[in-house]
């Protein structure tokens, strides 16, 4: 599945956001990273998923 092909850092942020429903601030605090990093990792994750799922969405 496409999500399993993501890098660990991107996948962890995506799962915490999408499936655990955490806010950016909560993810940043939990992982000890800046909020900007949460957003850029989410962007990278979604961009990869979009590339992989192109034509299926």
């Amino acid at each position, binding site marked *: 599945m496409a999500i399993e092909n993501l890098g660990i850092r991107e996948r962890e942020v995506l*799962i915490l956001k999408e499936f655990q429903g955490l806010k*950016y601030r909560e993810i940043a605090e939990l992982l000890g990273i800046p909020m900007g*990093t949460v957003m850029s990792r989410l962007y990278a994750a979604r961009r990869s998923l979009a590339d992989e799922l192109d034509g299926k969405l």
Partner: protein
Amino acid sequence: MNVTGDGLDRARRLMMSGIDDELSAVERRELDDLLASDPTLRAEWERLFRVKRATGSMKLRNPPEEVWEGYMNTVYRRLERSIGWILASVGAIVVVSYGVWTAISEMIADATVPWYIKAGVLALVVGAVILFVSVVREKLFVRKTDPYKDVVR
């Protein structure tokens, strides 16, 4: 007009916040303006929004308890190590500074040490302090102006 460089980076972060409904009113207006002015960005926004809809409708197959436990342990370990590094660094700075200060004080007080050695050591210390202050000042300046300061690569 196409958004490029630092503007593109900000636009991508705004798109994420927009998709996840975490934008303030001002940021929402900024994002709307960007999307209206850049067709490429608009197309990417729609593409990413489709991904959000798709992942939003998915269910996570809940892994066994021990997998979650293992994952949380790695998170806590990372935090633990950060705290450990900070404490060890502060301790090392204090101990080394105290040692250097004591050694220099004793050497200055020692009448058998030639004056030019004392002058050399003083020059070394003053030079090191100036370099340290200069580097700290530069770091602080870069931190204030660096658009990527909130991003860990």
